[in-house]
């Protein structure tokens, strides 16, 4: 190997700016995903088939196609089809938000359906009406049970957010790519960028792991 490393070429300031954009994007997308994902979960569990089917298709479509395809599609096809163009950040939030909604809806659905039937029986035996059973028994238990998956999905979205660099949102990845081409120091730049992503994700995954273990102890 005849390559000399020069990390001085990597200026941190634009990368941190990019990181800030990535974090904003991640936060906004997660708010959408956690809130609307829940509504979507209710829709895909609707007893009415005509309501359920289109939303199930929606969820499956977003779960079964690459995120990069979704992003490129939303960025280029939506404006052409509907002749609207929102600012790139909004489009990015929309693209990743739809993706996360689909994944979170699945997480909610799984944990709502995992509420044991006996719990509901107990609710009936205590005279709670159907709405009360859903409100006081199903939601709290299901929401708690979904938290680790929601957090994991949230971190995955932080990583997926790197894809918006391809459509020129100036996130961490985009700044990294720009820096790499400007300085012709791709190794150093990409190494630093990878480390920044890691430094943000790692502590969160550790917390999720901790929560998961705590929950398992509590439930068993």
């Amino acid at each position, binding site marked *: 190997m005849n390559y000399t490393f020069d990390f001085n070429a990597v200026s941190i300031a634009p990368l941190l700016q990019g990181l800030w954009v990535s974090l904003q994007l991640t936060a906004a997308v997660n708010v959408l995903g956690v809130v609307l994902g829940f509504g979507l979960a209710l829709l895909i569990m609707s007893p009415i088939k005509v309501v359920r089917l289109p939303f199930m298709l929606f969820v499956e479509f977003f779960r079964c196609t690459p995120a*990069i395809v979704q992003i490129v599609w939303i960025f280029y096809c939506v404006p052409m089809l509907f002749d609207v163009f929102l600012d790139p950040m909004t489009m990015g939030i929309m693209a990743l938000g739809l993706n996360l909604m689909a994944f979170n809806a699945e997480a909610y659905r799984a944990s709502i359906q995992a509420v044991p039937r006996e719990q509901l029986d107990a609710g009936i035996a205590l005279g709670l009406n159907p709405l009360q059973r859903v409100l006081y028994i199903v939601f709290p238990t299901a929401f708690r049970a979904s938290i680790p998956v929601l957090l994991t999905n949230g971190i995955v979205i932080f990583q997926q957010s790197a894809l918006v660099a391809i459509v020129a949102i100036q996130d961490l990845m985009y700044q990294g790519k720009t820096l790499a081409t400007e300085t012709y120091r791709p*190794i150093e730049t990409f190494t630093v960028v990878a480390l920044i992503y890691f430094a943000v994700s790692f502590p969160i995954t550790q917390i999720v792991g901790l929560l998961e273990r705590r929950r398992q102890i509590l439930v068993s």
Partner: protein
Amino acid sequence: MMTLDFSILLRFEHALLLGLWMTIKLTVICIVLGCSLGFLVGLARASGNLALRAVSGAYIEFFRGTPVLIQLFWIFFCLPLILGVELSNLASGVIALTLYMGAITSETFRASLKSIGLEQLDACVALGLPRSAQVINVVLPQAVLRAIPTLLSNCVSLFKESALVSAVGMADLMFVGQNISNNTARPVEVLTVVALIYFAIAFPLTRAVSLIEGRILKKLAI
């Protein structure tokens, strides 16, 4: 609102198939290599050796904690320099996605190993089974059976993530799709069809996951 004309795609059927073939080839190779790697790393992660555990843990956390896109960039352009060897695009793609797959499947294998109750091992000891039979006849088959549904989901993830190689210039389905959409200036039709192709492959796989999951759960009563 524009009018859509999907017939232009007929001209590029062969190209799309070639792109799809690249995507599938890449996915299948990386599934095989990645699962093998993941299994070994899963074992290392569960082993008693502290160094092995630390190294495998760091590997998993790093690959799960960084975007696949940056892993690809790094392996495409940095690894050859650091190793001082030339790597073809395909080789780089295979290395990157194999490492990604290895990281996610190792967790699957580890979880399935962990889910085998200690009492199964007690039963092995009580039956006097030698260590080799414990592993080959009791632990491995159960671990693999339990891992299958999650492994299939991992495969679907890999299939989807493989679309990222288009960003480093590998001519996979996504790359060909973008190439066509540029040439024809019909991105809506082309990208929609590309998305549908991905969906048509991934969706049946996810259905298979639930089906197989049901079967295995029933058989093992877990």
